[in-house]
């Protein structure tokens, strides 16, 4: 019986990491998996050099993020390997060169898989969606108010994975920050159905990935027309 591509991708990437004796996936690997599991991500391309970066920026259109992809560079921002709001192919080319140079000076022997050129996400409400495998509970998902202060606000809620769309909506309604989703201060409501469906998709991924240790999707940006993942951090068990 043919295995579904979604599971194949999961197995392949897990095997690669295991072979390379690392527990953390790169952002690109994470996005490959997200794509297979119906988790919307900001359009992006993996490029190898500044000229490819320029072409990619042209194709994607609008401001882009330029981020190094390397299994050996964990703190990309710290290493000077992330440039945001890069406008146009010329700037993209320069930014690509910059992050590659910074990457090499940060860690001279780092494996560089490439540079990610990613369309900047529209503004919206920042949520965090997480997953993990717990010894007593098995697969678990979490969602809540995201962003860099998520551990301070602690406005999150948990469920055993997988969840239904109905249950995903209930999770969101439990949050103190729920009014942000239904629209405050003149802002329009977000697409709650799309958000719930994405939570369901992420819960399916977590439930079907026994090698998963922890997953952070922070932020998942919810806006009027849908949701979009802008980062992904996956650690295997």
């Amino acid at each position, binding site marked *: 019986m043919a295995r579904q591509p979604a599971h194949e991708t999961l197995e392949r990437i897990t095997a690669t990491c295991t072979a390379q004796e690392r527990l953390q996936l790169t952002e690109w690997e994470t996005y490959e998996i997200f794509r297979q599991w119906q988790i919307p991500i900001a359009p992006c391309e993996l490029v190898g050099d500044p000229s490819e970066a320029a072409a990619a920026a042209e194709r994607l259109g609008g401001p882009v993020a330029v981020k190094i992809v390397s299994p050996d560079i964990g703190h990309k921002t710290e290493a000077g390997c992330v440039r945001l709001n890069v406008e146009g192919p010329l700037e993209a080319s320069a930014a690509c060169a910059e992050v590659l140079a910074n990457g090499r000076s940060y860690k001279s022997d780092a494996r560089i898989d490439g540079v990610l050129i990613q369309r900047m996400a529209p503004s919206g409400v920042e949520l*965090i969606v997480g997953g993990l495998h*717990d010894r007593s509970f098995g697969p678990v998902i979490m969602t809540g108010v995201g962003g860099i202060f998520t551990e301070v606000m602690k406005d999150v809620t948990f469920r055993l994975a997988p969840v239904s769309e109905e249950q995903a909506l*209930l999770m969101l309604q439990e949050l103190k920050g729920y009014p942000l989703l239904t629209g405050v201060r003149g802002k329009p409501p977000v697409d709650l159905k799309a958000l719930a469906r994405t939570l369901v998709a992420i819960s399916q991924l977590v439930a079907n990935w026994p090698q998963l240790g922890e997953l952070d999707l922070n932020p998942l940006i919810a806006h009027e027309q849908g949701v979009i993942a802008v980062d992904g951090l996956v650690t295997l068990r």
Partner: protein
Amino acid sequence: MATSLDALFRPRGIAVAGASNDPTKPGHQVLHNLLEAGYAGQMAVINPNASAVLGVTAYPDLASIPATVEMLILAVPAATTPAMAEAIRLRKLQRQDLRVVVAVAGGFAETHTEEGRAWQEQLAEACVSAGVRLVGPNCVGIIDNRNRVDTTFLTGVHRRSSGISLLSQSGAMGAWMALEWGALPVPVGLNKFVSLGNMAEVDMGEVLDYLGQDPTTRAIGLYVEGNPRARALMEAAARATLRKPVVVLKVGRTDQGSDAAKSHTGALAGADRIYDGAFRQYGLIRTTRVDDFAVTLSAFDRLPLPLGGRVAVLTNAGGPGVYALDALADHGLSLAQFSPATKASLRATLPPFASVGDPDGHVDMTGGVGPRQVAQAVAAALRDPGVDALFHIFIPTKFNSAEEMARELLSLLPGLKRNSLDKPLFPVLLSGHGVAQARKLLEENGIMTFGSPDQAAAALAAMARYTSARQKPARP
């Protein structure tokens, strides 16, 4: 499929190993409890050094007991396990009657010694091979007040039954609750009490399934600590909540996430937060206080479920009424909005200075209100479709004694029932000795009474949450 747990609650024939004439020994207390409970089946004692204990015939071993023995209670030291294991095997071989062993004594795996673990494994293995269920070891055991079975060594057990069954992961916590509730001014009895100790074989999930299907259990109280089989337990709870409310008290609320976590998720994912999510997911009702636990279970047992959480508050004393409004807010309940017809009816019934609908849903009937007026006001408010539940706060005055008020209330309720008005009523009588007779009168006539607006609010909030959860079931 293993033998069902019926024999745990309705055994035909019980033998107690370790019952002696020494009243300081637990075995003696176990036998005493069985007698006190009024167990109607055959009982036997296994004790080679006595001919009888508390009037019950003693035998040298399990094999020599002539009558049917479906339940064996082991109140003997863990070191006797090899002999007991053999006795169980032999009995099953010769008589085929043994169905459940309740091992009360400690000294097993909970000691974290090789010896203790080995004895536990040996006991479990002997039972499983013989097709006999094992409860414990190191357990308080079970009390079934309908079937008059008591395998525990607790003293002061309240023997009246109810629709509430309590399943406790901790023997001491379970005992605290069972004994305290039985000693309340209005005692709360239990249908079944179960505490499984080390859970070497029968575990909480299976008992939860059993209680979920037990027709005489109307509400389940669940006390949990950490549990390596948490998911299975939650899934069993999910099946039970389809049929009846499961109220859970869980400790360990300060469990933090892991410091070593790589992700925000890992740092935030303390065990208690995950439990909390699972409770919400599967419709369990969580309480955090033992006092709320009792009154909530009682309310589920005795009151009709509200259709929602809109409350009318009728009081004959201003201060406690305002206190009650705070209690409602604390528990996430809201005041009902009276219809104009209800307001008119209330104003017509009550004394001239009564305050109706300030705020909406709240009525200060004044201290001068008489018993008949109170009853009519309560009826009028209950008839309002915007009212899901009613708090009636009452203080005895010279215009209205507690007994008179209670009698008027009792006289109007059958009429309401005839009109299919099945809404939960929360009479809060304040306080102490002065209202004890009135509370007794109401309770004897099947009306649940409350000692404070806080208790009433805690109970109603739990019921409203359950109503709401039932409307959106989430199955595993």
